[in-house]
């Protein structure tokens, strides 16, 4: 239900009325700045500010936001721990040598690199979450058309988007019917049940595809898929703060890299 949940949150977000371009600019802009930053301070600032924006004006539930962050956090911590021992350079901070051929060392270089990676991932993930939690996929299709993505691809995306939920609901229904009749009780049974589920899903998707063509024919399909041209115009009220924020973040980045404060 997670993908449905995320899209629902975006549909009901308080920033729904803001032009999707503005929101994507903010998300992508801060993502790029976090990515190029050689210092962990900039991604940290960006992540904290965007989180505050998501929690206060957008009113995302803190519990849900926390849950969302758990998955990337686990992956990042795992990778950072590996990086900590893998990278080198600088002075040795801590060494562990239980047997002759295993030598675990943390150096100042590996520590600063790992910290940078950790905060970059933190800043970038939150930039993406900002887009995901404020801009529904349906609002993005129009933008895709404007930036010149082939219309056939967008039509396909729209149909796929529409059918994800139908196929998902169907999969859940079949799965429930199987579980009710003790479908996944033993490992062998689980494999059999799962293959049956896939088969059933394939057949029903095939039928749904035929129905789709019929439904389109019923409504005089002539190769045109309408687009949602209802997005609000770009408002200076929201665009100016976004530009100011990105400029500020960029400024901090420049000051920190040229001012010699950055970790080499």
């Amino acid at each position, binding site marked *: 239900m997670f993908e*449905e949940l995320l*899209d*629902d949150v975006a*549909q009901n977000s308080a920033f729904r009325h803001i032009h999707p371009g503005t929101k994507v600019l903010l998300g992508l802009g801060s993502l790029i700045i976090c990515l190029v930053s050689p210092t962990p301070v900039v991604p940290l600032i960006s992540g904290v500010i965007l989180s505050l924006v998501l929690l206060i004006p957008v009113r995302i539930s803190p519990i849900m936001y926390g849950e969302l962050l758990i998955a990337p956090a686990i992956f990042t911590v795992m990778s950072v721990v590996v990086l900590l021992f893998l990278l080198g350079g600088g002075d040795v901070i801590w060494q562990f040598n239980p047997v002759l051929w295993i030598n675990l060392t943390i150096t100042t270089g590996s520590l600063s690199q790992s910290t940078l990676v950790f905060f970059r991932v933190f800043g970038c993930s939150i930039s993406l979450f900002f887009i995901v939690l404020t801009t*529904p*996929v*349906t*609002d993005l*299709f129009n933008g895709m058309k404007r930036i010149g993505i082939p219309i056939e691809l967008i039509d396909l995306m*729209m*149909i796929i*988007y*529409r059918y994800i*939920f*139908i196929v998902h*609901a169907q999969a859940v229904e079949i799965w429930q019917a199987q579980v009710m009749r003790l479908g996944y009780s033993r490992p062998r049974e689980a494999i059999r049940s799962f293959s049956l589920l896939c088969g059933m899903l394939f057949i029903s998707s095939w039928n*749904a595809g035929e*129905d*789709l063509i*019929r*439904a*389109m*024919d*019923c*409504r*005089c*399909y*002539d*190769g*045109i*898929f*309408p*687009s*949602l*041209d*209802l997005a609000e115009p770009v408002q200076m009220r929201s665009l100016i703060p976004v530009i100011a924020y990105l400029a500020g973040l960029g400024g901090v980045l420049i000051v920190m890299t040229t001012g010699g404060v950055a970790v080499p």
Partner: protein
Amino acid sequence: MKVILEARDVRYRYPRGMEAIKGISFHMRRGEKIALVGPNGAGKSTLLQMFNGMIRPTSGTMLFDNEPIRYDISSLRQLRKRVGYVLQNADRQIIAPTVYQDVAFGPVNLGYDDQAVREAVATALRHVGLVGFERRPPHQLSGGEKKRVAIAGVLAMDPDVLVFDEPTSGLDPSGSEDLMELLDELNHNGKTIVISTHDVELAYPWAERAILLLDGQIIREDVPDVAFGNTKYVRMAHLSVPTLLELSAELGKRGFMIPERKPRSVLDMVHIIENQLRKPYTPPAPGTITVCNVDERETSSLPGWLKARPGIAVGAMGTRAKQCAATECIALEFTYGVIDKCLLRALRGQDSLILTTGSMVGRVAARVEAYGKESGNAISVVNLNTTNPFPAPGHMDVEVSQNDLTSTKL
């Protein structure tokens, strides 16, 4: 009124399959409300799909506006613009990721300009009461809302005829009522509406004309009170008589005056009952209900027993009892609500036989006893399994009172 759609002896056979439509002729006038009623597999959906050219009849002619339907692409587009089809499953009809895009689908493909598309969508959404839903994705909508989106998608093309396949399937009762009201409203705005359904309670008060379909053929086509009032046809089509109609028929059988125009609503019924209350009524001596447990007795002698009692009605409760009736070629008068229907007969002084199994025998006695206590009417239940041998018709009552220990004399 002008005829808008007509079928002349149309037939349809599935590729390498059975014949789904076996020679149907009928016409539809502009502004009419028609209900196509029949059991599952009667060919309702197939016939409906012929109206907008989705299915081409194997033989016979479909006419729209007195012109035979042509099946080339541009003629079909014209036809589908004028005959809107709403599928049974709204999820299958909604193709776009947002309500606006879905409703705009028809107008955009018909080549309307942007302004006209916007207007068509706004009008359609206003009609179905979904203003403000433009940007919502369909998967967030309730069943009733999805149905309305599907209808709006068709309305946006401004068709003359609206075809609905099972419009209320999957809707809750209040959703169904709302939808039928919407159909009425659309009809008032000049649309011709045809629905397929097996819900007679819904179709009876709504339709101006009912077409009973069975096995690819029309078995009856008339105003609803005639079409649904004929128990023979209704039973043939695996349907049930609408409650209001059944009630008025029962009152009529008891000698009450039922007006020529049958009741179409509770209001009509109340009016009839209020009129009757002012007249005295003496009920006849009640009839007997005989119960037979088909599991416990040999049933081959039943047809003979029934033959000796002309005028007795037979009802069956449960699958085994119905199977037994089919094996013995016993015509069943009642197949649902059997005990109450037999009680109604008994109150008119007529006898009936209930075929049933196991513990249901006790349930019949209990229900009749409960009814007797409530109403003060004494109706006797005879258990055929304990009356042995079969009593001759003339001596039945005597035999019963002497032999039948389970008889419930109330």
